[in-house]
């Protein structure tokens, strides 16, 4: 390729990227303005410049609290999902039999069911025994995520040679010990994938938490952002500052773990 075409192409790609990124830019620019500045020109900076919106939005979003609610729910769910699905997948990959096949097909089958097709009975089931809180949200997140996680782990365990298990058994290790100390650590790349996929899904989820923990004090970031948006009464500068705050945690985490996140997302889709 000639050097001039190469530069031209690079320039073209740069413009496409800028265009793609512009929605983020426009949100940040207008979060840094007063109401008048947004009215004058929402497309770029105006002389109206302030950081005050962030303070107001931070308080209105009860951000520290919402952040930790999101964090607790995400971390607890991801830990339970990872342990439960890794254990099951390990047994499935080592013991072949009718029960294992049934379980595998159960996982593949339940993955087909859209959440909207079970949310009404699920909610009435938990509502009847008055069990709608953060614990039940973690239980529901687990139930909704184990199927895919088991299938992902199953593929990884299949790739770990059974001679490892046999060697450990000869040394007198029980299956539980073999699993915890030898086999589970051997699939840590897949553990990373399962953790990242589920964490992203649960952190961003709105529909399920809105049905289960839609109460003051238990709000996660998306829930609180939705409520706050209704209160801002088209004061976009506040809503946009709230959006920026809400996006910051996951973007920072992504920039730190870029490569792993992109590999995990690809693996989750292809497997």
């Amino acid at each position, binding site marked *: 390729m000639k050097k001039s075409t190469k530069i031209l192409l690079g320039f073209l790609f740069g413009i496409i990227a800028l265009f793609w990124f512009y*929605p983020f830019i426009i949100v940040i620019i207008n979060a840094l303005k007063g109401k008048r500045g947004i009215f004058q020109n929402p497309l770029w900076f105006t002389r109206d410049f302030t950081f005050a919106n962030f303070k107001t939005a931070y308080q209105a979003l009860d951000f520290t609290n919402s952040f930790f609610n999101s964090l607790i729910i995400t971390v607890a769910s991801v830990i339970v999902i990872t342990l439960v699905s890794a254990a099951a997948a390990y*047994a499935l990959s080592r013991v072949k039999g009718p029960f294992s096949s049934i379980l595998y097909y159960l996982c593949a089958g339940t993955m087909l069911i859209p959440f*909207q097709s*079970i949310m009404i009975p699920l909610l009435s089931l938990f509502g009847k025994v008055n069990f709608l809180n953060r614990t039940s949200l973690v239980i529901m997140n*687990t*139930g909704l995520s184990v199927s895919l996680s088991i299938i992902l782990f199953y593929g990884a365990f299949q790739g770990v040679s059974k001679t490892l298990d046999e060697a450990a058994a000869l040394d007198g290790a029980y*299956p539980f010990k073999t699993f915890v100390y030898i086999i589970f650590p051997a699939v840590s790349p897949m553990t990373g994938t399962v953790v990242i996929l589920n964490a992203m899904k649960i952190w961003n989820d709105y529909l399920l938490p809105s049905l289960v923990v839609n109460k003051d004090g238990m709000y996660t970031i998306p829930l609180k952002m939705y409520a706050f948006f209704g209160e801002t009464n088209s004061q976009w500068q506040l809503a946009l500052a709230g959006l920026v705050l809400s996006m910051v945690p996951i973007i920072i985490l992504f920039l730190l773990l870029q490569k792993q996140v992109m590999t995990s997302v690809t693996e989750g889709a292809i497997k």
Partner: protein
Amino acid sequence: MLIKKHQYLAFVLPAVFFILLIIVVPFLIGIYYSFTDSNGLRSSFIGWKNFEVLFQDSTFLQSFWLTVKFSFVSVILINLVGLAFALIVTSHNNRLTKSLRTIFFMPNLIGGILLGFIWQFIFTSAFQAIAAAFHLDFFKGWLSNPSTGFWGIVILFVWQMSGYIMLIYVSFLNAIPKNTIQAAVLDGAKATQIFFFIKLPQLAPAFTISLFLTLANSFKLYEQNLALTNGGPYRSTEMISMYIYNTAFVNFQQGYAQAAGIILFLCVTIVSFIQLALSRKQEG
């Protein structure tokens, strides 16, 4: 056998418990619900009536067709854009293409509610400013009109999903052996020939995966719909998931809403089986 029966059970039972409690049991109850007139408090069995009424309910039919139309348009656009992005970021291996990959993927990190609000600002304030500055009526009132409102959700979804689909195409493009392409270049093949005769055929499985991933996701779309248009104006942009939600939790017609949920399930299942059949064919 290294793992004894009771040990096996200890490994698998927690997972079985969660799947049964959260998915299988509600699913079975849901099938029963769809044959009742439940309002959340009391219910009685009414046979196929919900389904009969659904197929004459213009709001349901409209949201169903809207979802089908939306899925069709988004699937095409997302895959075109995703493939174009994949070709861009694999064209060279330098810092520019690496940061492009990051930028293209970034919208996928953000949850549906936040995405909806971001685009609500763009379609109202930013578009209004463009309309005023350049005297273009095209940019006026996008979310207060059913047809531009529909395209608004499409644009949002394309922005969100293209980077994700790009990654799938990238992984298949990277799997094409380098010397195949080098050999073609030595034989004097043009870039377009390399694309159509070498890259495209290798991408067939990626197409199946991406098509159906996009399809399944667009059928289940809810949060973006809620935050961007909330189904408005006058329920004209209300897609099937939002229809189910509103019918169940706003109008409290839970049996009726569940019947629509069963129809959604059937659609997703049919689509998935077509995919399975297609990818089996590709492998065989």
